């Protein structure tokens, strides 16, 4: 069964992530894979599937976050723009700068709005204040938060609303100029209005970044993504253009899951 969809062209290779033979173990247990997938650059790819299907494990494999989990072992190959992200010579921190991540529960640092966004830049060695200011402003504009916070950049980030905090976390990831943004259920803790803002933002981000989003909300996947991957029990079942997945999926398991035939 060919789960690899030919969705990338030469034009899209920038920001593309190629996954080959990816297998993830937690101890002796195979949690995911083997998976082959070509994630097209500058598009939104959604990962859907029931709880425990491996979609979050897959997401975390894309920026080596799985290494934070004790007993986790990864096999196979993941490449960003054809450069491997695993391997003894590769710096995991550098990988996570280029492949940033946003989590379900937003986690702003207990610092000012400005310092949150500037954090990654300062860690990376940037000290020039005007350049820092410029980069922070740009990141906040790209995450559609600038207008709301420009007059209170030195107030605590913890005073922001849930939706604003999430956009702040996105700005923090954007500040270090990533190629890819990974999002793990970014809107599931937000109300419908904040969710709509995040979805609108995702749509805009795809102009400049590759976005991979895990969501348990199928309608959200249908709304925001160009491509959708369906995982079930550690396997990739189907990967295709979103409009195909939601109008005429090829695999019966995909059809059953998205139409609500869970058994």
């Amino acid at each position, binding site marked *: 069964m060919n789960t690899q969809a030919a969705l990338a062209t030469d034009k899209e290779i920038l920001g593309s992530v190629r996954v080959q033979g990816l297998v993830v173990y937690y101890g002796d247990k195979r949690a995911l894979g083997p998976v082959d997938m070509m994630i097209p650059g500058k598009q939104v790819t959604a990962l859907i599937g029931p709880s425990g299907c491996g979609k979050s494990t897959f997401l975390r494999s894309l920026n080596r976050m799985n290494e934070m989990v004790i007993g986790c072992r990864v096999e196979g190959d993941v490449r960003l723009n054809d450069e491997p992200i695993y391997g003894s010579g590769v710096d995991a921190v550098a990988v996570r700068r280029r492949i940033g991540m946003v989590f379900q529960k937003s986690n702003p640092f207990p610092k000012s709005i400005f310092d949150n966004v500037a954090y990654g830049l300062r860690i990376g060695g940037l000290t020039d204040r005007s350049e820092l200011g410029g980069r922070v402003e740009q990141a906040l504009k790209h995450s559609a938060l600038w207008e709301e916070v420009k007059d209170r950049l030195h107030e605590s980030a913890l005073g922001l609303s849930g939706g604003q905090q999430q956009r702040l976390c996105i700005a923090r990831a954007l500040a270090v100029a990533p190629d890819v943004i990974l999002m793990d259920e970014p809107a599931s803790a937000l109300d419908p209005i904040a969710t709509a803002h995040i979805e609108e933002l995702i749509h805009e981000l795809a102009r400049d970044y590759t976005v991979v989003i895990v969501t348990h909300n199928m309608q959200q996947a*249908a709304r925001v993504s160009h491509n959708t991957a369906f995982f*079930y029990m550690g396997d990739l079942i189907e990967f295709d253009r979103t409009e195909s*997945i939601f109008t*005429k999926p090829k695999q019966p398991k995909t*059809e*059953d899951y*998205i*139409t*609500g035939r*869970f058994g």
Partner: protein
Amino acid sequence: MFGREHTDREYEHELLQLREQLLVMGSHVESIIGDSINALLGRDTPLAERTIAADRTVNRMEVELDGLCLQILARRQPVASDLRFITLVLKVVTDLERIADLGVNICERVLELNAEPQLKPYVDIPRMGTEVQSMLRDVLDAFVAKDADRARKIIDRDQVVDALYAQVFRELLTFMMESAHNVYRATRLQSIAKYLERMADHTTNLAEMVIFMVDGEDVRHLTSRDDLETSDPRHGRN
């Protein structure tokens, strides 16, 4: 792995209800076709009048089914095969209602004809009627059985009806040329044949929709039928 029924039983029930009501509407329309031809053959005015009244039921069902579809779309956000099914029902209902209207048109012509002596024995028009009724029955069966191949065969049968119509038209033309006295009845008969030919076209639309529902393949406007129409002006679809 998963069951074939929706986990939400109420949703499953709504879809079943939709399907059943569609089939009931289909069988009403089948009856209207049969009754309109029988009214013609038997010069049966009361039957023609009853058939015209029966159209009201079909119209009511069109409204009800459209309403049900709208509700399901709003509340369930259907996708994949469910989405194709719902959008199909919306279109099928429109075509069925048109077919029923054409049956009413046949009955109206029958009432006019019954005021005059019969022009000629009816041979080809009843054959058209039988063929159209059978095409409609088969397309509803194909829909229930989710059988795209059966639906494809129905598309080919439209040519049979078109050929019969051409034959009827030619024959009625000779009657009209023979005597001006024949023109009133011949034109009514030609209209009836035309209505049947249009019914066959609508039924062919239904077959294309079944193929889309089952296969996800949109085969509209692809068949050789379209070539036939451009070459013979009498077969123009409305």
